[in-house]
């Protein structure tokens, strides 16, 4: 602990002194007015409590606990152990943590901890961690308190600045959305009108008129694609695209999609080659968005290849899968390669056949890959061909669970609701592996997973087998709800084990935790549910 002040409560005048000192330190540490008053009143009340005993002293300091920094108020006095004190119970609620302990010398120690700032304030922890020498060199600890107070002010100012920028961002994206929607309506009307004339509904048209109208129609389509792409890229950049992830067999996804491109390739006299692993590659992805990625890259490859082939390949690595689309087309120059993923960039497209691009396709592709926590890059040589590659991470069940819990917590905090995590584990798992064989135990767990999945009521609830346990995430469910669900699950599994004659062999343990009541973030929720 870094000690800031030590006050011996010699007489009643020091009670006021203690309260004032705590008030001053809390003010320097930029606590809000409510907490300043609370801490000062606590100091006064607890000083009165210890004042009647021998050697009463109040120590004000800073202490690190786990990753957090706390203002610590420690009240010490020499007295025998006492039973409960109603004062202490009242005071407890004003602190983030409160402890009572007794030393070997007969001192009662009451310690109250008040968290200095919300979790976004990292500087205090970093400051104390990295500036140890500076802290120890300070002649007065009050200088440290003043420094921390200044740092907090800077962080608050930065927060205000960032909030201002975020507001500006929102105004910009709302503008983009509104303008794009406003442009779509007149475009639809124009297209409808042109189509009516082209279809000769309004009367005959000559060849020259037809040619002009076709050009107009093509450009309307192009404008529409540009608007849609602008909307897409805007949403991606704002982080407003919610991926609908599920476990998908990537081999099947690619094979099903390729067939629609085969016809275009045949028309151009090009070959489509496919190089996929024999083993099924299951990834946790948004199938629709990944198809969009393949569609964009394949479409570009076919557009800019006059002869030869277009190849799609998948390469499975330890933690990821590498997807590549390569062609024997005209290629991209080395000066243009760094700009390939920039918005509204098109390279050597002017004379190409087929529809013109919007210049946003590759930006969108990059956005989608990065939303999946993958990377994308290009290799190319002018006149020889181009190869676009991107990675998609392989998801272990642990990664899936953490991501699912994170998304759930984010949704709960936006909706001001709760989520709960239940961890179902088999006791003495290692011992059972000897008795039942790992294969059989794995099958039992899969069976349990399936039964629990069927018992889930809400669409967003999920159950997943994670190595030796089954984790169930319940959306919009607090402590009371989770107890009911847990009891229902216990009954389901009990019936299952009875039917399989496993009741004597397998014992189940249920652990659970709720956000935000018991856990502040995804890691804490998972940890507390496993330890419960």
């Amino acid at each position: 602990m870094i000690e800031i002040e030590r006050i011996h409560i010699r007489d009643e005048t020091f009670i006021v002194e203690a309260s004032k000192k705590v008030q001053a330190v809390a003010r320097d540490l930029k606590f809000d007015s409510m907490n300043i008053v609370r801490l000062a009143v606590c100091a006064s009340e607890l000083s009165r409590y210890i004042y009647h005993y021998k050697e009463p002293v109040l120590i004000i300091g800073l202490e690190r606990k786990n990753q957090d920094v706390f203002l610590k108020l420690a009240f010490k006095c020499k007295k025998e152990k006492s039973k409960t004190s109603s004062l202490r119970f009242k005071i407890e609620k004003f602190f983030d943590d409160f402890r009572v302990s007794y030393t070997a010398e007969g001192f009662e120690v009451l310690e109250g901890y008040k968290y200095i700032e919300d979790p976004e304030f990292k500087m205090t922890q970093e400051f104390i961690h990295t500036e140890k020498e500076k802290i120890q060199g300070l002649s007065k600890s009050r200088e440290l308190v003043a420094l921390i107070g200044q740092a907090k002010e800077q962080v608050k100012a930065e927060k205000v600045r960032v909030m201002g920028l975020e507001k500006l961002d929102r105004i910009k994206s709302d503008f983009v959305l509104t303008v794009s929607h406003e442009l779509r309506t007149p475009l639809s009307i124009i297209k409808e009108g042109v189509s009516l004339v082209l279809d000769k509904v309004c009367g005959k048209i000559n060849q020259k008129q037809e040619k002009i109208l076709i050009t107009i129609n093509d450009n309307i389509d192009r404008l529409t694609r540009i608007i849609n792409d602008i909307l897409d890229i805007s949403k991606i950049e704002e982080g407003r695209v919610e991926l609908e992830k599920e476990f998908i067999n990537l081999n099947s996804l690619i094979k099903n999609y390729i067939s629609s491109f085969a016809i275009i390739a045949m028309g151009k006299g090009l070959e489509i080659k496919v190089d996929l692993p024999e083993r099924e590659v299951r990834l946790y992805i948004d199938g629709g968005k990944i198809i969009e990625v393949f569609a964009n890259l394949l479409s570009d490859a076919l557009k800019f290849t006059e002869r030869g082939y277009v190849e799609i390949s998948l390469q499975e690595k330890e933690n990821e899968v590498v997807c590549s689309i390569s062609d024997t087309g005209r290629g991209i120059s080395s000066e243009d390669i760094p700009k390939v993923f920039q918005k509204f960039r098109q390279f050597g497209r002017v004379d190409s056949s087929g529809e013109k691009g919007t210049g946003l396709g590759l930006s969108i592709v990059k956005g989608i890959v990065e939303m999946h926590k993958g990377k994308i890059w290009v290799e190319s040589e002018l006149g020889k061909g181009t190869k676009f590659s991107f990675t998609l991470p392989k998801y272990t069940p642990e990664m899936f669970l953490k991501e699912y819990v994170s998304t759930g917590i984010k949704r709960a905090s936006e909706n001001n609701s709760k989520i709960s995590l239940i961890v179902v584990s088999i006791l003495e798992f290692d011992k059972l592996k000897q008795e039942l064989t790992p294969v059989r135990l794995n099958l039992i767990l899969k069976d349990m997973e399936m039964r629990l999945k069927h018992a889930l009521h809400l669409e967003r609830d999920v159950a997943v087998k994670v190595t030796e346990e089954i984790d169930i995430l319940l959306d919009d469910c607090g402590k009371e709800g989770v107890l009911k669900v847990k009891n229902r699950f216990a009954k389901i599994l009990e019936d299952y084990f009875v039917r399989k004659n496993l009741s004597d062999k397998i014992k189940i343990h249920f652990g659970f935790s709720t956000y935000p009541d018991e856990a502040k973030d995804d890691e804490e929720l998972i940890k507390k549910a496993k330890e419960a």
Partner: protein
Amino acid sequence: MHISRGCLLVPLQDDLYDESILEMQAEILEKISQAGVKGVIIDLTSIDILDSFLANTLLDTGRMASLLGATTVVVGIKPELATVLVDLGLEFKDILTAITLEQGFQELRPIVEPEERPEEIEETEEFEEETSEDVTCEDEI
């Protein structure tokens, strides 16, 4: 402290030690019995911190004043203090409260009537003494 609009006004300052709080209590009771005021306003506008000792002393003062025929209103409690007081279980029952000094006066107005201010009561008593000596039955006839 002073008398204003028929009420004893007691503005408390910060940095009150236990001894001075008890002295203040004694002074309030003395003033009530000397001046015969019916209303007491204790102003906490300048008080940032209020612990159980001060809170309980104020409550006791209110009860004691009531025994002397005076009603007490506590004004100027800050919102943060109010929250902490309730959390500590120190509610101001048996004592009136108001947000501002003016509201405190309004609260006591029905109790403190201006024509019965202490100095006027003394004058009326003198006048009655004089007239009672002058008028006799023989004069009336």
